[in-house]
């Protein structure tokens, strides 16, 4: 044990001796730790804020009565609920989207002087301001017992014509307490007075839309739905158990309505949290693996560079164990440095983000315990695992090496063993991918397969270096006019560190290739599906009759088809995603099937349209999107049990159709189920059947066919003007949105990939410098016997190019393999039948950047050889 303190000292001395390299390796660990901590803290902060907002919304309520199909129910249920024993307070709510207008024309506020704001068009300021918040009709006297309204300005409304605005809506309308706002209802307008404004503390997702509270009965009247409610919230007496209460009164509410504990809202949310945790775990493993690649490369370089020192230590009585331990301690010190720098850096990074988005994150910065532990474990693992191979190398240095002028030539056996282990790891990963159970397979693959694949590729980089050297070496030598064989020999003199450097560099290329491939595949898939009638109108709380009439009466609208959207749960099986983790909701679209099929080019994949349509109208079955067949091979004849709450029906699948466009469009409009889960895919039913069975006849989409003589943009403008509160997107808009989202995602992924490339290029520069230092004697001799400076520079650059080409080859192979795995998962988990794309241009750009970085990384090395006199190179080589 006493002997081991010597290892510690040795580690410290080599750490201090090579400060820059230490900094680089510790930096890699620190960066990985910081990344994991920052990402996890950001996720937790966002989740905490969502939870915060959810909890605020639920307030003090213990139970609630809701219409799971987003429909309305009769107010008489509220009367019944009030008679139940144990109910302390019960209040009803009615929700609607409402367009409010602030007529600013006469009284433009003084601080909005147009002269002060030259960017703004003065005419625009003169126009009345509009906003379309979600309006909630509430019982003013009761709602305060449920929720706390923060920083209330003005007074609490109690009149039928008074409003309570949130800060967001007030900002949009530039409204202040006491202002009068108007609401257009059919052809009349009604006026309301702003009684109060409160601070809504919204979180990200809901930022775009305000929330206002107004008198329940007034809103019901405006909507033309007297005595209808969307939800009822209950506060129970202190001694009542919410679950028991809900069970007891379960049968007393109508079939299409359900009574549940308020905290049930969390269930989908909790499932999402679980999902992000697993994603974080898989991501962390990979991040730290890359850090450990840089450590392996750095330490291996140090060990081979310091062979002589190690051998001397052996000569004067250092044991193998001590040398082994000194490298492991070195790794541990790197981990420690990484943690000490990385954790605070990560928290600070998340803190800056939380501060920047402070308005959207009411819960503020949250520190993720999971993230901290993951990054500590990861840093430790990266340091220790990264040090194992170098430690082994160090312990094998024979004492006689102290007398040898040059490092021993690499042994073929080790290269072969390395290649075999690499192939074994790749095979292991392929094996894991064959596991029959998809959930098991997914987990095994994410936590074991992908790391094994990366480690395998890292090891295979060494044999691949030989291949690249043999094939590309002669060509490159000829191009750079280097004497034949010179470059090949010098690259292969140190195949491990060169191969490992290529392995560290490969990660950036692989991220670039795999993410671009997957994103382009998805993009192609979605774009190829977006082909439908010319435009689609949308309103989240339903398009009103008058709005629909307004759109249909436009002269350029030739045909239209109403579509309803409903989240339904699948009860009898998991269709998408992982067992017990993927969402169990599906999007149910219902429509007038005859018109729908008339104006849309629907491709039938399975089933007979004639028979199917007949039976659909009788409510005997459903059509499903082809994603069902792709994912779980569910098709015609299978039965799904669908519903929510108490309502459940069995439906036979009558046909499989390709309607990707509708799914992507619904997704883009941000339709989510009430339980905050993304409903994955679509099923189709007859409109009348749905209205009757699920008690919701709202129309959410109105598909519109436009005549040829009108410009899309113009049509869009006119429709949105004629029916305020409606969003109208043309096919082109949808495609633009898809493109925009895809390219934003790809841009982010590319930044990550290039950052990884840049970081590993530092490792590259380091190895090249070490190589050059180790060989300065040789270079000095070369120059002394008349070798030209240019030749040395070309030789160094040529060697670096070989490493970069090896990295490009390994990275591209790895990236395409990962892309294939990704495409398989899209099919398996989401049912998307995407085609694998080779991202030629991004890959070429990546390789070009890699070569450029390589060139830059060699410059210090080239300088250190070309600049000094040959004599000093020879002298430096002697004493080294």
């Amino acid at each position, binding site marked *: 044990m006493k002997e*081991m303190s010597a290892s510690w000292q040795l580690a410290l001395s*080599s750490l201090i001796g090579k400060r820059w390299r230490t900094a680089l390796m510790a930096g890699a660990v620190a960066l990985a730790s910081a990344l994991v901590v920052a990402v996890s803290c950001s996720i937790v902060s966002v989740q905490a804020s969502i939870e915060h907002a959810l909890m605020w919304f639920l307030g003090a309520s213990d139970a609630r009565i809701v219409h799971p199909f987003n429909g309305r129910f009769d107010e008489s249920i509220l009367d019944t609920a009030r008679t139940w024993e144990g109910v302390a307070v019960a209040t009803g709510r009615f929700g609607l989207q409402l367009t409010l207008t602030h007529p600013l024309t006469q009284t433009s506020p003084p601080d909005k002087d147009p002269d002060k704001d030259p960017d703004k068009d003065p005419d625009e300021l003169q126009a009345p301001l509009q906003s379309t918040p979600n309006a909630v009709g509430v019982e003013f006297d009761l709602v305060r017992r449920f929720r706390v309204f923060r920083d209330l300005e003005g007074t609490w409304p109690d009149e039928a014509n008074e409003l309570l605005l949130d800060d967001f809506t007030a900002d949009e309308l530039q409204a202040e307490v006491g202002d009068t706002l108007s609401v257009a209802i059919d052809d009349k307008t009604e006026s309301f007075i702003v009684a109060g404004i409160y601070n809504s503390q919204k979180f990200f997702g809901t930022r775009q839309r305000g929330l206002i509270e107004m008198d329940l009965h007034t809103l019901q009247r405006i909507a033309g739905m007297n005595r209808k409610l969307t939800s009822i919230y209950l506060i129970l007496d202190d001694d009542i158990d919410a679950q028991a209460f809900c069970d007891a009164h379960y049968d007393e509410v109508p079939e299409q309505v359900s009574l549940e504990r308020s905290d049930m809202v969390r269930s989908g949310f909790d499932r999402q949290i679980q999902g992000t945790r697993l994603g974080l775990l898989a991501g962390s493993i990979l991040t730290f693996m890359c850090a450990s690649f840089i450590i392996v490369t750095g330490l291996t370089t140090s060990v081979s560079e310091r062979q002589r020192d190690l051998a001397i230590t*052996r000569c*004067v009585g250092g*044991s193998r164990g001590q040398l082994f331990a000194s490298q492991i301690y070195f790794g541990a010190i790197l981990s420690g440095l990484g943690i000490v720098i990385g954790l605070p850096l990560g928290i600070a990074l998340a803190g800056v983000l939380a501060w920047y988005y402070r308005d959207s994150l009411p819960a503020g910065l949250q520190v993720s315990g999971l993230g901290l532990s993951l990054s500590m474990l990861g840093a430790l693992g990266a340091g220790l695992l990264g040090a194992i191979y170098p430690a082994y190398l160090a312990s094998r240095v024979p004492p006689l090496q102290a007398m040898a002028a040059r490092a021993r030539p690499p042994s073929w056996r080790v290269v072969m063993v390395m290649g075999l282990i690499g192939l074994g790891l790749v095979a292991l990963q392929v094996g894991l991918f064959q596991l029959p159970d998809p959930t098991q397979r997914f987990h095994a693959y994410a936590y074991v397969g992908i790391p094994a694949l990366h480690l395998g590729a890292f090891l295979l980089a060494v044999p691949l270096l030989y291949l690249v050297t043999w094939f590309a070496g002669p060509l490159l030598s000829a191009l750079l006019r280097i004497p034949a064989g010179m470059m090949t020999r010098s690259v292969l003199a140190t195949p491990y560190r060169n191969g490992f450097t290529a392995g560290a560099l490969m990660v950036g290329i692989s991220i670039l290739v795999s993410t671009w491939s997957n994103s382009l595949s998805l993009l192609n898939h979605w774009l190829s599906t977006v082909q439908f009638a010319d435009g689609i109108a949308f309103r989240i709380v339903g398009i009103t009759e008058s709005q629909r009439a307004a759109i249909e009466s436009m002269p350029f609208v030739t045909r239209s088809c109403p579509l309803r959207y409903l989240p339904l749960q699948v009860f009898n099986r998991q269709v998408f995603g992982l067992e017990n983790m993927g969402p169990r909701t599906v999007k149910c679209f219902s429509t007038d099937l005859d018109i729908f099929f008339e104006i849309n080019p629907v491709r039938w994949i399975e089933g007979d349209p004639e028979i199917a349509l007949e039976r659909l109208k009788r409510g005997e079955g459903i059509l499903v999107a082809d994603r069902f067949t792709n994912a779980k091979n569910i098709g015609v004849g299978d039965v799904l049990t669908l519903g929510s709450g108490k309502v459940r029906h069995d439906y036979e699948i009558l046909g499989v159709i390709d309607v990707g466009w509708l799914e992507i469009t619904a997704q883009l409009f941000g339709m989510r189920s009430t339980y905050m889960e993304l409903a994955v895919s679509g099923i189709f039913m007859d409109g009348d059947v749905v209205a009757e069975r699920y008690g919701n006849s709202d129309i959410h989409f109105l598909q519109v066919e436009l005549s040829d003589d009108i410009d899309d943009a113009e049509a869009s403008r006119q429709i949105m003007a004629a029916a305020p509160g409606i969003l109208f997107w043309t096919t082109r808009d949808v495609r633009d949105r898809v493109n925009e989202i895809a390219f934003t995602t790809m841009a982010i992924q590319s930044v990550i990939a290039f950052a990884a490339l840049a970081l590993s290029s530092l490792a590259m520069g380091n190895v090249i410098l070490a190589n050059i230092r180790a060989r300065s004697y040789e270079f000095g001799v070369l120059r002394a016997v008349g070798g030209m400076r240019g030749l040395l520079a070309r030789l160094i650059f040529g060697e670096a190019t070989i490493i970069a080409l090896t990295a490009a080859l390994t990275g591209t192979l790895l990236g395409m393999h990962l892309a294939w795995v990704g495409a398989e998962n899209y099919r398996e988990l989401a049912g998307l039948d995407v085609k694998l794309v080779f991202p030629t241009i991004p890959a070429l750009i990546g390789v070009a950047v890699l070569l450029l970085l390589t060139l830059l990384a060699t410059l210090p090395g080239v300088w250190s050889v070309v600049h000094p006199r040959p004599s000093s190179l020879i002298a430096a080589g002697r004493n080294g």
Partner: protein
Amino acid sequence: MTKSYTLGRRSIEALRGIDLEITKPGFHAIMGPSGSGKSTLLHLLAALDRPDQGEIEINGRRIDRMNESQLTMFRRHHIGIVFQQYNLLSTMSALENVTLPALLDGMPRSQRIDLGMNLLTTLGLADRAEHRPDALSGGEQQRVAIGRAILFEPSILYADEPTGNLDSQTSEQVLNLLATLARERNMIIVMVTHEPAAAAHCQRASILRDGRIVHTIDVHEGNVGELATRALQLDR
């Protein structure tokens, strides 16, 4: 004992049957032309390598039978080695280099510093204690290396051409130091050398040729000249 190396398909017999016994403390030289096997012999004697055949006994212990970790401990405590290239660790100061074996042995720091400083003072290097090797002259580096070799007062010190990289004046200092050590500490010092001037400090000299010992001579003032002639002859 014998030792051969294989280089590809070729086998090189570096030592073809050496029989050498050194019993008395003192300064022993091994001379011979380049390639005659001097270094190989020294490595075997210093437990840095193993013979193909034969036995090596030091202080009554058979080092050819020791395992790796026993050899390591034996080297640490009973053998000192000095190289032509000095071979100091470039990341450590003179003091740290001198005390490296003590560090490896787990000696507490304060004790190590005392021991090292005493030694450096004896070697006349006390004011250089904090310098790294690259700030020391060749002679100074070699003296630090000798200090490191004798830290644990081993009974045997091996030196492979310790003056090969030094000018004649510094060489003389280093040789005097070694001779003094042999005399005052009662050590066996085995030195491989090329130079008759270096051999003049020795009590005995063995002359090696093609892996065999061809002469072993007692050196005294009278026959240094003869030794020089023989070495010169052999070198031709």
